[in-house]
């Protein structure tokens, strides 16, 4: 399965954990909130699941092939 990842910026607390752990997949926007980078497609599902699990605010959301949300916590 190839997961699709989104950031819910209303939830993002700007901890930067996802950016520090996976700098090719996540970055910051001008307001210092997390964004998904094009490289997210290359980091692998397990890394994305770990990033979602370690995000304190639950702002990283993952979706499967059929569009349904994958909950990893």
């Amino acid at each position, binding site marked *: 399965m190839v997961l699709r990842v989104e950031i819910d910026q209303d939830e*993002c*607390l*700007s*901890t*930067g*954990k996802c950016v*520090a*752990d996976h700098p090719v997949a996540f970055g910051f926007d001008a307001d*210092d*909130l997390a964004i998904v980078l094009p490289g997210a497609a290359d980091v*692998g599902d397990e*890394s994305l699941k*770990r990033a979602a*699990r370690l995000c*304190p*605010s*639950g702002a990283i959301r993952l979706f499967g092939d059929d569009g349904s949300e994958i909950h*990893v*916590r």
Partner: protein
Amino acid sequence: MQTFTVTSYEMAKDCYRNKDLRQALYDAGEVIMADVLVNLHGDAHRNRRRLENRLFRRDTFMFYERELFPEIIADTLAPHLAAGRCELVGFSHQLMMNLAALTAGVDRPQGTPEETFRLYDYLTTFIEGATLAHYTGDRAAKAREIEEKLDLFDAEFLSPGIARRKALLARAAAGEVTDDDLPRDVLTILLRNEDNLELTHEMIRREVAFYLLAGAHTSATAFTRVMHNIFTWIASHPEDEERVRTDRSFVQRATHETIRMQPSSPIGMRWVLADTTLRGGMQLSPGDKLVIDLLQINRDPSVFGEDADSFNPHRELPEGVSPWGLSFGGGMHACIGQDLAAGVVSFDDQDQQQHLFGLVPVAVQAMFDNGCRPDPDDPPETDSSTTRPYFGRYPVIFGQS
């Protein structure tokens, strides 16, 4: 209103992420904890945390761990090495205070031992304020003493620090200096956003005092406990004695294991704000109170293994279980200084050169590098002024045995 106790790992994780549950742990410590980050809820919490999180990022921690902290350790340790002995509880609080003061934005312009001693005196009083619920003496009298110490701290340290930063911020606004010239500390961030966050002077005062006490006390307490647990471990596992000096990952695992077994706060507490049902089916109503029993949760054999009640720095855990259990909390209120104090867990797909071990493991290893061991003639004592399980004194000596 009912009080419920949560003892399940999964249910506790659910509690920490539930937005209908509000912080309740520090209600008794309002004198110093009112309106500080960990006590805020909802939008007020999110807005302040987003700003303060900018200081608590991996690149800043890496700078602290590799550049700043080794020097602070060496300076703080030097007189004790010269004396050949040290008392760990006092030493660890001085050490961690030196770093917490930088993070919080508490300047010591005189740079004298007397000035540091006065700050240390304020710090120890503020710690009693944050843990007032567990204080065994006269709480009302202690609260008055804390208020008086806050005034003195404000006059000597905070207000001059605010004046210095406001002058710098004015120069930055005029284009005379750049952002790189501004201090990277909590106080500067608060002053830059004073209006947006609707902060009063008293709120800034409590927030800076909170960062000073939280940054120093939790790490200092963990430090002494890690030292004790490693002393005990290598006495029965001599094959690991050399690893304490040569393998920082081992010291980091010992730190995580200590924090799992002996969390800084043995419980979490939450007020219920709205009707909600937790994972597992527990139904809660507004006004109910939740006690999250971290001591029991962190020793659950179904999560941490059959020997969960024992200290084991070689413990193997399944993916998704933190080696420190839930001692750093979770969700939106997860400890902001967690990575700074205890580092991060290493994964195979990450750059090992960028691994962050945490300040507690770095400081612990520095002690063992200098032949630190318990003083055989002066055993450790517990702290009788609180119901929390703290050491009151822990004498050690240095050099080869």
